[in-house]
């Protein structure tokens, strides 16, 4: 049972009994509060920054695109921390300081505060625009740089396997996807039945395979490795495509150009 229920019978006027504070006292009180909140916010933000930079968010990354994506993520993380701590600190401070501890009174009738509202709007607007420009547009432009491929691989998704065709040599495989290091690779992705999604976690690239159209995505691998060394090096279907969806994957091997050429030759023969 609520301890306020006894007041319910009284006319609303009577419940109103807030303390009237003199102007000077109120002002210094507000200043103190703001100082405390400000300091707490700073501390929380620094701690937050320490935490998010100390923790390694990203799985194994092996491509130029992975660097861009991870940088964008880290930047967003740094921007998110002060926002989150601000809201949490202000709410937390209010919860600690501004509790009604049985006095049964109303708070001051503050309806709005021009400075605070305008400041808040300005900050959120500026932040949104900043986020749009960087890492949004800038990251996207970086991903789209170097649109000329050195190697084209046709990827065909069908339930529930991937088929890779190396465009120039015509080599075809349903096994491990072999890609050479430091080579600009374009994947031309298509599907024969339903929608799949061509995703290589270690490369941070993903593009749907849609029946009827050919979609493309580009990547430059920067680290050697195989599925056995890091299971992020796999082609994984990321769009639900039926019963075999979870197991629609193959390994990816990033090899040196010499090894790649040798493999290509051996497979073509």
């Amino acid at each position, binding site marked *: *049972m*609520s301890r306020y*229920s006894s007041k*319910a019978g009284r*006319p*609303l*006027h009577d419940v*109103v009994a807030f303390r009237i504070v003199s102007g000077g006292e109120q002002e210094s009180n507000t200043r103190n509060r703001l100082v405390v909140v400000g300091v707490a916010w700073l501390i929380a933000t620094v701690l937050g920054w320490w935490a998010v930079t100390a923790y390694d968010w990203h*799985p194994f990354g092996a491509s130029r695109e992975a660097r861009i*994506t991870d940088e*964008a993520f880290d930047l*967003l993380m740094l921007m998110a921390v002060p926002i*989150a701590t601000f*809201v949490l600190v202000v*709410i937390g401070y*209010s*919860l600690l300081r*501004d*509790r*009604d501890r049985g006095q049964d009174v*109303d*708070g001051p*009738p*503050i*309806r*709005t505060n021009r400075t*605070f*509202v305008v400041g808040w*709007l300005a900050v*959120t*607007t500026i*932040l949104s625009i900043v*986020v*749009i420009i960087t890492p*949004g547009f800038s*990251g*996207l432009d*970086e991903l789209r740089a170097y649109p000329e491929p050195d190697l084209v691989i046709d990827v065909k998704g069908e339930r529930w396997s991937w088929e890779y065709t190396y465009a120039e040599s015509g080599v075809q495989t349903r096994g491990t996807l072999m890609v050479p290091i430091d080579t600009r690779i374009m994947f031309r992705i298509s599907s024969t*039945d*339903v929608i799949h*999604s061509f*995703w290589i976690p270690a490369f941070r690239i993903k*593009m*749907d395979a*849609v*029946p*009827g*159209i050919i*979609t493309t995505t580009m990547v430059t691998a920067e680290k050697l490795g195989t599925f056995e060394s890091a299971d*992020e090096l796999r082609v994984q279907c*990321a*769009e*639900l*495509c*039926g*019963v*075999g*969806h*979870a*197991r629609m994957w193959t390994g990816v091997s990033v090899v040196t150009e010499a090894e790649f050429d040798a493999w290509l030759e051996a497979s073509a023969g």
Partner: protein
Amino acid sequence: MNIVRGLIGGAVGYILGAALLMTIRVATGARAWEVESVSAGAWMFALIGWLLAVGVWRYWAREWFGLELVPYTTTGWRRYLDFDTDHKVIGIQYLVKFLTMFFMAGLFAMLMRYELMDNGEALLDSGRYNAIMSLHGTMMVFVAVAATVGAFGNFVVPIMIGADDMAFPRLNALSFWLIPPVLIALTVSFVSGGYDTGWTGYAPLSVESDVGGLFFNLAFFTLGLSSIIGALNIIVTVVTMRAKGMNWMRLPIFVWSIFVTSILSLIFTQFIALAMLMVVLDRTAGMVFFDPASGGDPLLYQHIFWFYSHPAVYIMILPAFGITLEIISHFSRKPLFGYKWAVGGLLGIMGMSMFVWAHHMFTSGMAEALRKPFLASTELISIPTGMIFLSAVGTLWLGKIRLELPMLFALAVLFNFLIGGITGVFLADVPVDIQLQDTYFVVAHLHYVVLGGGIFGLFAAIYYWFPKMTGRMMNDRLGKIHFWWMMVGFNVTFLPMFIVGLQGMNRRVADYTPDLVGTNRVISMAGFFLGTSFVVFLYNFIYSWIKGAKAPANPWGARTLEWQVPSPPPHENFEVPPIILADPYGYGEPDSDHADLGIGTLPKIQETVEA
């Protein structure tokens, strides 16, 4: 009983419809029985049969044949099983119905988490896992879309604006009685093998799925019909039925949120009907909307689907915002800070929600040129969302906060949505989204928004208005146990999901790479913990309803109109139409009064406190 009558009516409708369609099929030289084609058409007849039997015949159709209308005159608890037109009865019907659905869907989630405890297949094979996952998603989306609006939009909005009922009481009942067929269709779907497309039902996979997929489409279709009718009713009610003096800037913020939500429902729900219709036509009538070989386009489905389903996210979350702000003001004993800005935020979200849908499709293969505009529009929607937080933070500041149960849940909405909102900014950023799309990061994000925001808001509303709806208090201690149990369980379940998503676990899989087993165990354990918290709630809910302490008219000392009438409110809510004098948030202002209830100058409040 009404439901039995309805089932018989539905069956008769189905048989008549099937017979008609089969006759037509035979006449055109097709095979008479083909389960999908016949069922899709016959479903419409079954719906009509169901509706006629549960009440439309007595309330409407008799008039068309020159007969007198025969309304139900049931009293007592049986009203809740009948086609009752009292908005308060309908509100409770909605609440119970959707809580049932919520718990069923929750059980499916438990099954999924059991399966995901380990990689490889344990309890369920991929097919069954997909079916259960799809059903969980679908039912939860239905709950999130319709539960708060249905239950509290119906129960409290008319009282809050000083009306004695909704504008169209019969339509109101009709929109509720379209909900049971939704559940029936989902059951039929599940029994007939389920469907494995997820709640998004992307074509062409959904065109090829088993017969269960058809009933999923029909269920969604029926729910859409219900929410359009319900939304229309709420809009007209708020526009025309406000009490004297209740001008737009005096509306409680919850009414605003429901009003804005209803506009979204009214306009956008047609698109989900269209998306479902196209799939059904592809399945049954040999059409080729999504068949590229004949000139169709699979991406068309996604555009139409998300054109509804992104606004639908706001249909889920805006009522929770409204409840949160409402509760924060009343329990901080302070006027709602920046009321106009909060309303502006709601309207801003409504306006912008129709320009952001393609951020679900950054990796879908749509035109590259669309990425930047949708990135920008999506990030900009955080400005109006920020206004909601502005209002909440400003209200709490310097308040006289009372940490009662509803307040705890309202604060939890703020906390959870803060995380959900910030991760939304990550997902709107195209480079990051390319990696995170379709991973558990998205799963975590959407659960923070929909469960942490929408459903926590629903529970805030239940704890807040339970005394008004039932006339009894919820047990406070059990409620607090439930709150902390649910809050901790929720966060421990879904925070690690961000991590597994980042580590490369894609969504909608029964199987995953071995290095993620550890985290998934933690998630599953926390998930079971979260699941069991609802047992406490359910016990409290049922026990308090039957045996809880009698509630006074205004247990929280809140100033909105619904608390100035007895609990539960009498049939027509007010003895005389109230006259509104000021907005309901005049806490701390001497001589401010929200309404003149016509009984003296001050609200008459009944003292029914029991020891």
